[in-house]
């Protein structure tokens, strides 16, 4: 078994009563650990902050700013092919 930890989006509300703000993402096996990791990674353990963690795949997002084909990463994984990683010629075989 080898499965990647899911990606979470982290939202933090500081001490001053402002709304939760998106601060970044991280990987964690479940929600509880996502919150703990968020504390370690994004607050360096400031007291008195409120943390939300949401699975990235559960976020519904508006359409992109421009019309035109919506690029869905899941449909176009060119990066899965080794040839995607174009190594400079000078470097030689690797």
């Amino acid at each position, binding site marked *: 078994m080898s499965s990647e930890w899911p990606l979470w989006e982290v939202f933090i509300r500081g001490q001053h009563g402002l709304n939760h703000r998106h601060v970044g993402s991280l990987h964690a096996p*479940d929600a509880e650990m996502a919150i703990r990791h968020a504390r370690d990674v994004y607050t360096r353990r400031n007291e008195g902050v409120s943390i939300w963690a949401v699975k990235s795949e559960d976020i519904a997002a508006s359409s992109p700013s421009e019309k035109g084909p919506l690029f869905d990463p899941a449909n176009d994984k060119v990066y899965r092919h080794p040839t995607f990683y174009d190594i400079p010629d000078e470097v030689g075989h690797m």
Partner: protein
Amino acid sequence: MYAQMVKTDGKGIKPREEMTPEEQRFQDRIDAGEKIEPKEWMPEAYRQNLIRQIGQHAHSEIVGQLPEGNWITRAPTLERKAILLAKVQDEAGHGLYLYCAAETLGVSRDELTEALLSGKMKYSSIFNYPTLNWADIGAVGWLVDGAAIMNQVPLQRTSFGPYSRAMIRICKEESFHQRQGYDIMMKMARGTPEQREMAQDALDRYWYPSLMMFGPSDKDSVHSAQSMAWKIKINTNDELRQKFVDQTVPQAKYLGLTIPDPELKWNEEKGGHDFSEPDWSEFYAVLKGNGPCNRDRLEARQNAWEDGRWFRDGLVAHAKKADARRAAARVAAE
């Protein structure tokens, strides 16, 4: 700090008349200073280049933990130990932010990690040099972080939103890195004769590798031109290298240390220093895998990944069990 490895698909800048309407709109948005966000349309080559550049940048942060981590257990005071630990921890954090930025382009962190460990993707060659005495920790902060910052500050304006935001956060956190390095150098350069010797030795070994960090001259490179048109590269390698030398010379003088370049001198006409080129054959040798530490660095990362597999899998298994138990409890309650 990974300009040296950035390369586009090699076709150079596409002339406007050859662009599709989408590509034209895309270029117009970039020219207008708009940020490109993950789900918006982008040319495939732009996406590929960004994944490669951000991925290499992230890998460099992670591999970059190793040469400095080499001294954590030997730091000479409790405060130096704490500072160094915090700095190496920051590098892990920076790697994490950058991987997340790359992930918005549709590649996963594990895929990027596997590409690093198999040698398909590269990291900055500077980390293939060893840290041999305590002054190296100073030199890495002063010169290596100094060179990195020179590249990272303009990248805050890069066209891809998540990359730009990661760079803003990184630059904010990195401001102390170069300073703490220089602080170590000052203590060493003004310390005992042995400490002075260590400081000069560190500068002697790290000077040319630091100049190499900016990559070979690219003023005529079509690859760089496309990256610059897309604003995923902001300055040429030579511009940044010149800026770095001009910034560093007075700092070395202040320390009373000698930059190991007899040709180094101020050129009034160009308003900058003339200096010797690094040995580019060494640069290519290190890129090919023949630096002093290439094998050890990669092996350390491979071991961390392989030895940690049971840990990562164990936590996934627990999360699944806990989920199943919660679901069963809900069913029982209904």
